[in-house]
């Protein structure tokens, strides 16, 4: 029985992924960040990482992969959850036997797929713009634990955020602090140039560690010298992301259950009325 639910959930994610690739507005959400990032990389390609002759663009690209992972897990999950709650998709799942489990599995597949596609859309053209990226055998090994851990560390948190905020129109409230974290997490600008207390804040967030992890995969080891403590700090990366995973996985089931329990026809209708009163989406 559970195998059947798992298959339904995977099928659901597959169908939604295909839909996102055949819907013009969704394609734009794939292409827009890629174009923006590639543009940034393009203009950075002749600058160098301070103190080396390594291309700044080439060092930024892996950082943005890490940021992409964090965005997918946190923002995409939160946003999909809010939209699905508002339009009644979640209530539909609740009205279907094992529908909630199927829904969540579907979302993991969808977000994982969207993230992979976004990743390829940045990586492939990026390789033509900058030189110096290389993945060695240890890099592949790192990817094997880093990417799954990235999802486990961020998706439950994203689900918690999506459950706590009622309306997709509140997305701006969530975007702002996350963009702030990106700014101080050494994605576009070296964290070593930040004041100490900002470095401390950044090192609490998964975004910094995902950026660092991705840099360790794609950049030559000599570039670890420009990082904090002059190393890739794999153990610390694993530790911090594992802590976030534990936190997310502890909170998410209870928060999701609480949100699901509150779903009903009148809750969806009330939300729709509010959406219409505020001018729709």
């Amino acid at each position, binding site marked *: 029985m559970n195998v*059947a639910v798992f298959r339904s959930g995977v099928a659901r994610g597959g169908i939604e992924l295909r839909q*996102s690739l055949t819907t013009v507005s969704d394609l734009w959400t794939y292409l827009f960040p890629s174009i923006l990032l590639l543009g940034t990389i393009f203009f950075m390609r002749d600058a160098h990482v301070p103190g080396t002759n390594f291309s700044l663009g080439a060092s930024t690209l892996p950082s943005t992969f890490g940021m992409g992972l964090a965005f997918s897990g946190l923002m995409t999950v939160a946003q999909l959850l809010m939209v699905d709650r508002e339009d*009644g998709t979640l209530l539909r799942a*609740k*009205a*279907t036997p094992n529908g909630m489990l199927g829904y969540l599995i579907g979302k993991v597949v969808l977000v994982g797929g969207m993230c992979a596609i976004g990743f390829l859309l940045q990586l492939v053209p990026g390789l033509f713009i900058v030189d110096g990226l290389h993945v060695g055998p240890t890099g592949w090994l790192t990817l094997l634990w880093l990417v799954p851990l990235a999802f486990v560390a961020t998706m439950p948190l994203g689900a918690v955020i999506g459950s706590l905020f009622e309306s997709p129109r509140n997305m701006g409230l969530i975007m702002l602090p996350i963009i702030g974290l990106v700014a101080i997490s050494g994605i576009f600008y070296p964290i070593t140039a930040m004041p100490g207390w900002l470095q401390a804040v950044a090192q609490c967030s998964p975004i910094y560690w995902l950026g660092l992890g991705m840099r360790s995969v794609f950049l030559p080891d000599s570039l670890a010298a420009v990082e904090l403590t002059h190393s890739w700090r794999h153990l610390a990366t694993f530790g911090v992301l594992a802590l976030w995973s534990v936190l997310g996985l502890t909170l998410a089931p209870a928060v999701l259950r609480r949100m699901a329990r509150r779903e009903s*026809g*009148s809750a*969806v209708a009330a939300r729709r009325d509010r959406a219409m009163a505020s001018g729709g989406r």
Partner: protein
Amino acid sequence: MTLTGELGAGTDVPAGERVIDVHDLQMRYGTKDVLRGVSFAARRGEVVALLGPNGAGKTTTIEILEGFRMRSAGEVRVLDTDPATGGEHWRARIGVVLQSWRDHGKWRVRELLGHLGRYYAPYATATISRPWPVDDLLATVGLTEHADQRVMRLSGGQRRRLDVAIGIVGRPELLFLDEPTVGFDPAARREFHDLVHRLTDVDDTTILLTTHDLDEAEKLADRIVILGGGRIIADGSADELSRRVAGEAEIRWTRDGQRFVHSAADATRFVRELFRQYGDDIDDLEVRRNSLEDTYMKLVRDLEGGAR
């Protein structure tokens, strides 16, 4: 038939045949009592219409029965299970059609029905094959030619028919319909009524529906339960309700090319008297007993008058 809130409605249904069994259901939000001791039952294959003005507690009642809302007090059994603790197997046996679905806009109609149907397959029994085959279901609700359309491109009436299709894709033993025909044109409404008859006659589905369309309630429902002020204020067949509540019938006739209208409590006696006086001069005679609408209006007015 009962006309007071104190009495349970449908308690004449034998306990073993009750698909829905509600006893002294109460719901309180903060200090506001929304349901104050509602009791009714529905038997297998029965269509029960829940009527009542806005705020009477219809939606609250139906959401408690669907297992989407916790109750404050009272006993509720739906398919022999308390909806508050109903598991996935219980969920598979009921169908829900709510008012405001806008979900799955990007999905294609056939794709969505096929996908949602999958969840019901493990719950098929020797007598009930689940899910309903998609093509058959599409034909049943009249969406065959829209099968490959995206859900967001459907018109309001088509979307509603899809909602109904999703509600019955698992071949439910009990179906909840919340204002099912809002936005239907008369032809679609007629087709929907035929579908409801098919579900109850062929598949023995029990249906609980809410509606504001009294004509629809009269056509579809075996029994009508009227909620008002958090209680049941009337329960019975449409015929019973109109007989009992509104005593007066309306009699129309023509004589010498002139139209007459008269209201009388005893229409038969009045007509007999009419013929005795005028005999063959009477033409175009019509006796109209009070409609469900008249009954309903009177009950609701009485309730509001009593509350003041």
